[in-house]
């Protein structure tokens, strides 16, 4: 029974509104990611959930209990910070024991020197807990060191350990992997997912990296300008974004967008080609979005472009094409064999998978309509 629920949270710093009526329900044991560009309010939302920040309006409840005015420590949440925030003067073991000392010991038991003598039994239990967590995280050999003597990855683990010892209702993580190097970040992603599976505790994870959100979460909430734009499983959000901003933010390389128009006969005019829609719509300017992997090279393709740049990732090659009538270069994913036949500045023909095309209104909202898979002559 530890469902977390945020209801109509509002927050502004001075005159600037940071969160506008944000609501989010997090189920027990879920891995939820708040993802968005910097300044979208995702960290603020996490800090309001943790209690470090007070919301101007709205309600935070954990396990059905209203905790809006409860102090951070009494919410029984644990937080992992981007800078790890380990106490520099304490050893790893003491760092991990601090939340336990604060929670389980009375005032006199926390006194230096005599505290451990007076509350010997509690100390023994706490040391056991610390050792257990250290073993899970494989940091037992580091227990006597100071944070200054650890590498970034090791500090990250210790910070996780400090969060784990108190067996919190939920883990809150504020961009915990941002300070690690690329290889370690990928490794830690897998490890965090594994940890989540093992602990079966709720994780609320804040990141600006859409790759982290896609790889780890059960559900992700895409935030922009102080609003949650879309909540859903990563696949759903990737394949079925509900607005142009979400479509643009999720996915790397970013989705291709074209200005297009629905003509009076209900067909779609797209960079010089007319495409049929499944059901005709009224005449309007629209934005067409299509991801690089849904474009393919084809000698009989209806579109043409000049190769301006080849981005070779080994397993895939992304071709950046200058297409007449498109404002930005079009990015297309090709397999290395196909890409080998393409030379720079040459003209290539390509086509799209019609059922993968996304249509957006000029306001950015998604149009619930798809292209016909087969062209009617």
């Amino acid at each position: 029974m530890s469902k977390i629920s945020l209801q109509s949270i509002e927050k502004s710093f001075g005159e600037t509104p940071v969160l506008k009526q944000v609501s989010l329900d997090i189920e027990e044991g879920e891995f939820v990611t708040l993802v968005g560009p910097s300044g979208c309010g995702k960290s603020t939302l996490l800090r309001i959930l943790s209690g470090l920040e007070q919301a101007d309006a709205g309600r935070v409840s954990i396990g059905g209990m209203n905790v809006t005015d409860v102090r951070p420590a009494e919410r029984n949440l644990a937080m992992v910070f981007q800078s790890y925030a380990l106490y520099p003067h304490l050893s790893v073991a003491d760092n991990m024991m601090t939340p336990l000392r604060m929670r389980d010991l009375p005032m006199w038991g926390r006194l230096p020197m005599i505290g451990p003598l007076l509350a010997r039994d509690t100390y023994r239990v706490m040391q056991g807990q610390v050792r257990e967590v250290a073993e899970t995280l494989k940091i037992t050999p580091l227990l006597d060191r100071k944070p200054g003597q650890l590498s970034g990855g090791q500090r990250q683990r210790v910070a996780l350990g400090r969060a784990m010892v108190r067996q919190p209702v939920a883990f809150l993580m504020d961009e915990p992997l941002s300070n690690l190097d690329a290889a370690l970040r990928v490794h830690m992603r897998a490890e965090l997912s594994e940890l989540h599976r093992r602990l079966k505790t709720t994780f609320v994870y804040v990141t600006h990296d859409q790759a982290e959100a896609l790889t780890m979460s059960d559900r992700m909430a895409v935030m922009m300008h102080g609003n949650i734009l879309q909540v859903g499983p990563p696949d759903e959000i990737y394949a079925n974004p509900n607005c142009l901003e979400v479509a643009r933010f999720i996915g790397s390389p970013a989705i291709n967008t074209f200005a297009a128009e629905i003509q009076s006969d209900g067909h779609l005019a797209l960079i010089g080609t007319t495409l049929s829609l499944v059901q005709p719509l009224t005449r309007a300017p629209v934005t067409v979005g299509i991801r690089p992997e849904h474009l393919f090279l084809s000698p009989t393709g209806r579109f043409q472009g000049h190769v301006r740049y080849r981005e070779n990732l080994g397993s895939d090659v992304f071709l950046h094409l200058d297409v007449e009538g498109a404002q930005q270069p079009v990015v297309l994913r090709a397999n290395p064999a196909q890409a080998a036949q393409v030379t720079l500045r040459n003209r290539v023909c390509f086509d799209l998978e019609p059922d993968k095309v996304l249509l957006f209104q000029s306001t950015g909202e998604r149009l619930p309509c798809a292209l016909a898979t087969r062209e009617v002559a």
Partner: protein
Amino acid sequence: MSEAIQDIRATAFRFSTRAALTHIVLTLGALIVLLPFYTMISLSLKAPHEIMQQTGGFMGAQELFRDDFCVKLGNAVQDCMVNPIIYNYTTAFEKAPLLRYLLNGIVVTVSIFVIQVIVALPCAYALAKLRFWGREAVFALVLFCLLIPVHAIALPLYIMLAKLGLTNTYAALVIPWTISVFGIFLMRQFFMTVPDDLIDAARMDGMSEYGIIWQVMLPTAIPALMAFGIFSIVAHWNDYFWPRIVITGNRDLFTPPLGLREFKGDADGDNFGPMMATACIIVTPLIVCFLLAQRRFIEGITLSGMK
């Protein structure tokens, strides 16, 4: 390979006018600062006639001389022949209760420093890390207080202490210095460099705000505190002005600099040897402290902080 080494050697030994000039200026400055110390140490080693005639170099001849005071007490002349060093330093301890003065100095400076820290850390923490209405105004007041010279408020302070009947007590020596705006300012600047995440982590762990100050901020601020401690202790150990005002009669409360007055000229004439010996004894604890804490002290001044 060997060429490269030669290159390095060449750069290492190249004469640079700029560097030479810098060193000359620094050396001159150091001489000016050290010369009084040289004189102090030298005089504390010499016999009175060598001091008066300015002979004997640094050490003096270290010949035995006649202690007139001892003769006056009716002792035989040959029993009153003394070595200058021994005479100067024993007189320093005999003529005035120098140990008592040193103890007073320690009591006063340590109490001042401890209370200053107890006041300054919470203030600095609030000014650096808590958001409250009027914070900037309060900080501006702190900066303003840095500009007030001690001597300007000495008289009102004295009157207040006198009205409370506190003159000639340790309290009079300690109370006026317990709130150090310089300490608040220095610690506030240091706390600004402590990441907010660390404080948030402590809050998540369940520490109260005072818990954060004493269990998190204090240990991380040790280098800055060492620097402040040296400033504070040196200033109050060496202070002559304030003890001279509030300690009027009771010699038991004299701090070391007041002890120097015991040797000022009276009917016997000036007694520079023991006086300079006292001065040497008074500055020694400070020099020892500084040497022990030197590295930390410089760390604190540059506020290299933590990472």
